[in-house]
């Protein structure tokens, strides 16, 4: 019978042992950084560096000539110019309200579509594929299409409205209809995408929760609000954040459909920035617009990250 000296007597009395990181771990960590560095270099060069540069330009009396940029000293005049500019105020308000309305509408309609699809017995795959097509369409094409639909003389929207008795408005030539037209084009393109995300989230929900709810006596609407919505929240939340933040860069649609017009009624922040830099060649103020837009996006991002800390995956 072999016995090893028992546990109680074996308390190690000599020098206390110190935990060191594994040699292999260190090697793996170094390898990891090696693998990551190409990506970091590319991203750093093309995103971080220009962002910083943009901020620098926004704070200087920049003049651009054929040979390059000359930054003539530090100034906050670009920002004061921008903040006093009424078009910028409009663009800011327009972008925010536009984002809010389109996102809410997309969410509501998208969820409704998803609920319908969830109950679909046949052809769900086909439906999902169909829904992906507007998402994959080039926004420019979408803009041209709706431009044709809204065309004042021969657009099909015109024909429909006349047939219904609402007259023949010049949609793209009048501010409010133009804005609404823009929103409709955006909503048409993006709602299917939202529907798919919601549907995929719904499909992943555990079935037994619903059965338990049924046994407990819940039904329809009540089940939806008390069970489905809370369970869907993580999926919706992150998708929502991405969508909203991305909407601040609204450019393609108004550029092609309305060119920011009529007048400046559909000028988003990005359009304003672009016009300032490339049409008016005012690099300083343009950079200020661009930087403030980016700052807004960053702010939104950090706020929502804090709010949804739980959903953002941490490994350990």
């Amino acid at each position, binding site marked *: 019978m072999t016995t*090893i000296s*028992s546990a*109680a007597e074996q308390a*190690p009395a000599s020098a206390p*042992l*110190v935990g*060191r990181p*594994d040699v292999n771990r260190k090697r793996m960590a170094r390898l990891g950084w090696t693998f990551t560095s190409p990506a970091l270099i590319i991203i750093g060069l093309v995103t971080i560096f220009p962002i910083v540069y943009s901020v620098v330009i926004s704070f200087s009396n920049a003049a651009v000539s054929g040979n390059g940029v000359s930054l003539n000293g530090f100034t906050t005049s670009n920002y004061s110019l921008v903040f006093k500019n009424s078009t910028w105020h409009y663009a800011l308000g327009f972008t925010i309200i536009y984002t809010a309305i389109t996102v809410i509408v997309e969410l509501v309609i998208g969820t409704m579509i998803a609920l319908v699809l969830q109950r679909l017995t046949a052809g769900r795959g086909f439906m999902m594929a169909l829904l992906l097509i507007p998402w994959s369409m080039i926004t420019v094409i979408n803009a041209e299409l709706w431009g044709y639909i809204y065309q004042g003389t021969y657009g099909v929207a015109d024909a429909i409205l006349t047939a219904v008795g609402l007259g023949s408005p010049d949609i793209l030539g009048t501010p409010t209809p133009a804005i609404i037209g823009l929103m409709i084009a955006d909503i048409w393109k993006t709602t299917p995408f939202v529907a798919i995300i919601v549907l995929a989230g719904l499909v992943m929900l555990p079935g037994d929760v619903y059965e338990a709810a049924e046994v407990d006596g819940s039904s329809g609407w009540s089940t939806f609000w008390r069970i489905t919505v809370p369970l869907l929240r993580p999926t919706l939340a992150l998708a929502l954040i991405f969508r909203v933040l991305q909407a601040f860069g609204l450019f393609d649609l108004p550029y092609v459909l309305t060119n920011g017009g009529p007048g400046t009624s559909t000028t988003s922040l990005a359009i304003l920035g672009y016009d300032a830099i490339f049409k008016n060649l005012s690099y300083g103020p343009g950079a200020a617009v661009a930087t403030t837009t980016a700052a807004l996006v960053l702010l939104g991002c950090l706020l929502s990250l804090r709010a949804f800390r739980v959903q953002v995956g941490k490994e350990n």
Partner: protein
Amino acid sequence: MATVDMDKVNKVYENGFHAVKDLSLDVREGEFMVLVGPSGCGKTTALRMVAGLEDITSGELRIGGKVVNDETPKERDIAMVFQNYALYPHMTVAENIGFALKLRKMPKADIAAKVKETGEILGLTEWLDRKPGQLSGGQRQRVAMGRAIVRSPSVFLMDEPLSNLDAKLRVQMRAEVQRIQRRINVATLYVTHDQIEAMTMGDRVAVLRSGVLQQVDHPQTLYDHPNNVFVAAFIGSPAMNLYEATMSDDAHKVKVGSQTLPLPDDLFAARPGLLRYGDKKVVLGVRPEHLPAAHDGVPGPTLVGNVDLVEALGSELVVHFTIDAPRVQPEGAGTDDEDATAKAGEGVARVAPDTKVKVGERMTFAVNTEGMQFFDMETDQAIWD
């Protein structure tokens, strides 16, 4: 052919957690050594140190007599079977098994031959061209073993390979694993938390608790002569009944709760040390199988308990009873549920299936004194000499 020698091996993690403490253990050639213990006891860490997947903080590890502390897993010539098999899902069974050989640049023909041979040993011949996704749990487990044995390693390591199988399959595979191990006759270190697996499969069993080796012995020795309260409670199912008790002045009687059990003289032949415990408190241990129903006329000490529950297994009755003595339940020896609900005085006895037992009534059990275990109340150590 090789042996494994762990000499005062320690593992301390970066955050200060001391997972394995001065572990000294040897595995002989061809021996099936089982490392068993509750979760977190350090058994997997120890196994991974032998494999080379974890650094050794201090102490020496020798494989085949050579110190291998700083060698990579590949250099150590070990093979390992993981709990969830870790089969390469995109390769066929044949490719899975042959992968290590391919890495060693063995000629294709040789690889094919070895894979075929291994397939035959494991009964996988008709599955060689399938992918793991098409196999059942038991078959996947065999592929994992095949991948390990095809290399004819010096040491065979297994980390709870049967835990993912359902109960019936597990029993079947236990025999399979043993059969294969005997056939390849390689020193094997097998980790499990299931003490039944340990007892049925091991040539020797090492019990670990909180990183410290409690005892390493043949299964029967662990069962008959547990060194301390933990090992006594851990080994055996249903678990040993452990109570606080007091020895009489002359140590020839033991008082458990309100009952006094006289102890026969031959008990002290094997346990002379017990005589020093006159009037002292001890932990008394009696296995359920050593508490048959008392028959009139049969001599020997008896224990009376209140019957709470009877489980009829067909081959025997498992009687749950209570006595009025405090029960001793070392942490980690039972399942989490058992630890949590261990109430004072509970006990279990295994009696003949035809015994008349009634729930709620008092029942008398004959105590098989040869199997009695005594432990020092302070040190938890078994009392023998």
